[in-house]
C-alpha cells in the first residue's frame, strides 16, 4: 500500500513536471541563462568581440564601476532617491484616493477604470519613447494654461513658476504610477468589516479616531505589500536613469563587461533593500494589525 502510494506520488510529480516543462525551458533559456551569462561577463574581459572569447579578471569591472566611471554612482544615487521619493508620494496619494473611492461615491467603477488606465498606457516602451513625454507635457501644459494666465505669469517670480512646474511634473509621475497601488489599497479597505466601524461609532469615536485606530492598523499588512511592490516597480522601471545609463554603456560604448557588473551591483542592491525593508517592517506591522 505504502509502496503503491509512493509510486502514485512519483507519477503525480512527473505529470507536474510535464506541465511545467515548456514554460520552465523557456524561462531557463531566455531569463535564467542570460542572467548567469551576464554574471560571467561581469567578472571577465572580452578579448575578441566577434567570438566573445574572454578571460577572467576578477572584481576589476566592479571596481571600475565605482572608482573609474564618474557617472555610475551619481546616476545610481539619483535613481534610488527618485524611487524612494516617488514611493512615499505614491503611497500617500493612492491611499488617499482609495479612501475616497471606497466611500460609495457616484461613478465609482468609472473612476476605477480611469485610475488604472496609466498601467495599460504606460507599460509600453513606445509610448515612453515617442509619445510619453510629449503626452504628459501636453496635459501639464493644459493645466498650466488654466492656472497661469498672462497676468499671473507677469506678477509671480519665475522661480516660483519653475517650482510649480517641477511640482506638476512630480504629480504627473505619481499619478501615472499609482494604478496598481490604488487597487491594492481598495481591496484592503473593502476587507475591513463594517461592524468594526459601527462598534466604534457606538463608542462615539469620530472619523479621525476611526482612521487612526481602525483603518491604519488594519491596513498595515497591505501597506507593506504596496511598499514592496512600489519599490520593485520603481527600481526596474525602464525610464529609470541608472538603467538607462547601464544600457548606454552596453550599447553605445560597447563595454558589455562593465555594463554587466553595474547591472549586478544594482540587482544586488535591489534584493538587499527590498528584503531589509521587509524584515524591518514586518514586526511592527504584525504587532499593529494584531492589536
Amino acid at each position, binding site marked *: 500500500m505504502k509502496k503503491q502510494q509512493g509510486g502514485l506520488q512519483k507519477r503525480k510529480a512527473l505529470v507536474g513536471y510535464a506541465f511545467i516543462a515548456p514554460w520552465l525551458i523557456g524561462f531557463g533559456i531566455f531569463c535564467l541563462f542570460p542572467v548567469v551569462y551576464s554574471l560571467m561577463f561581469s567578472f571577465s574581459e572580452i578579448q575578441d568581440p566577434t567570438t566573445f572569447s574572454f578571460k577572467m579578471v576578477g572584481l576589476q569591472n566592479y571596481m571600475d564601476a565605482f572608482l573609474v566611471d564618474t557617472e555610475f554612482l551619481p546616476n545610481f544615487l539619483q535613481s534610488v532617491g527618485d524611487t524612494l521619493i516617488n514611493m512615499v508620494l505614491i503611497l500617500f496619494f493612492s491611499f488617499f484616493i482609495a479612501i475616497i473611492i471606497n466611500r460609495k461615491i457616484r461613478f465609482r467603477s468609472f473612476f476605477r477604470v480611469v485610475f488604472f488606465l496609466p498601467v495599460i498606457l504606460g507599460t509600453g516602451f513606445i509610448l515612453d519613447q515617442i509619445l510619453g513625454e510629449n503626452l504628459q507635457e501636453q496635459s501639464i501644459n493644459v493645466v498650466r494654461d488654466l492656472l497661469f494666465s498672462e497676468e499671473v505669469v507677469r506678477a509671480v517670480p519665475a522661480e516660483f513658476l519653475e517650482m510649480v512646474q517641477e511640482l506638476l511634473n512630480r504629480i504627473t509621475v505619481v499619478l501615472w504610477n499609482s494604478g496598481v497601488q490604488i487597487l491594492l489599497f481598495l481591496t484592503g479597505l473593502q476587507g475591513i468589516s463594517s461592524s468594526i466601524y459601527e462598534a466604534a461609532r457606538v463608542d462615539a469615536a469620530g472619523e479621525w479616531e476611526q482612521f487612526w485606530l481602525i483603518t491604519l492598523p488594519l491596513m498595515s499588512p497591505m501597506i507593506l505589500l504596496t511598499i514592496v511592490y512600489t519599490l520593485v516597480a520603481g527600481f526596474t522601471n525602464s525610464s529609470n536613469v541608472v538603467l538607462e545609463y547601464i*544600457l548606454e554603456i*552596453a550599447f553605445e560604448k560597447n563595454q558589455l563587461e562593465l555594463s554587466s557588473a553595474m547591472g549586478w551591483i544594482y540587482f544586488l542592491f535591489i534584493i538587499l533593500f527590498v528584503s531589509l525593508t521587509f524584515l524591518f517592517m514586518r514586526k511592527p506591522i504584525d504587532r499593529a494589525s494584531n492589536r
Partner: protein
Amino acid sequence: MSVEKGLKIRLHSGSIGRLSFGKFVGFLLLAAVAVFMALPLVYVVTTALKPLNELFYFPPRFFVEEPTLKNFKDLFLALDGLDVPFTRSLFNSVFVTVTVVLLVILLTCMAAYGLVKHKVPFANLIFSMILMGMMFSQYVIQIPNYLIVNGLGMVNTYWALIIPKIAVAYNLFLVRQFVQQIPDPFLEAARMDGAGELKIFFKIVMPSLKPVIATLAVFSFVNNWNDFFTPLIFIQDEALKTLPLAMQMISSGNSIARAGAASAATFITVLPTVLIYVFMQKHVVDSMAYSGIK
C-alpha cells in the same frame, strides 16, 4: 434605553451629514484628477484628426478646430518613401502579438497548475528563481539574450519576437495565486472519475482561471503590442518589422506631410490596447486586486 437609541441616531445622522460634504469634496477631487489622467488619450484622438496646418501650430493647441480623416487616408494609401506598406507592419504586429498572447496563456497556466497542484520536488526552488527573475531588470540582460537568440538562428524571423517572450516570471507569479484557490478535492474527484490530466486541465483548471486569463491576455497583449526594444534588436528585415518600429520610421521621416500620417499611426497603435482593456477591465481590476490579498 431610548436615550441611548436617540444618542446613537443623532451620532449616526451627524456622521452622515459630515460624510456627504466630505463625499462631495472627494468627488470633485477625483473628477479633477480623472480628467487630468484622461487628457493624453484625448490628445491622441484630437491630434489624429487635425489637418496639417493645425498640427504645426506653435504653441500646439489641445483641441482640433476642423477635424478631418485625411491623415488616415495618407497613412494607408499615399505613404511614399517606406519600403513596405503600413498594413504589412500592422499585420506583423497582430500576428506576433496574438501568437504570443495565446502561448503565454496556455503555457503559463500549465506551468502554474503543475507547480501548485502536483507537489513536485524543488517547487520552492523554482518559485524563488521566479521571484528573483521578477527583480532582475530585463533590459540589463539584452546582450546575453541576443547572443542566445542569435545562436538559435532566430534573428530576423518572427520567432525572435515570439519564443523569448513566452515565459515571463511575473505572469507565473500572478497565475499561481489563482491556481492555489482551486480546491484540491475538486481535482481529486475528477481523477477518481477517471478523467485524464489533460482533460482535468482543460475542463476544470482553465475555466476556473478565467479572470486571471483575461488579465494575462491584457497585460501580455499591451506589453508585446507596444514592444519597441525587441524588434529593434532582432529584426532588420523591413517586411518583418512591427508597428512601433514602423511608427518610428514614419515620424522620423522629415517630410512635413509625414506628420499627419504619424499622428494617425499613433492613434491606430494606441486604439487596440485601450479597447482590449475597456472590454476586459472588470476581470483585470478584480483579479489584480485579488492577487494582492493572497
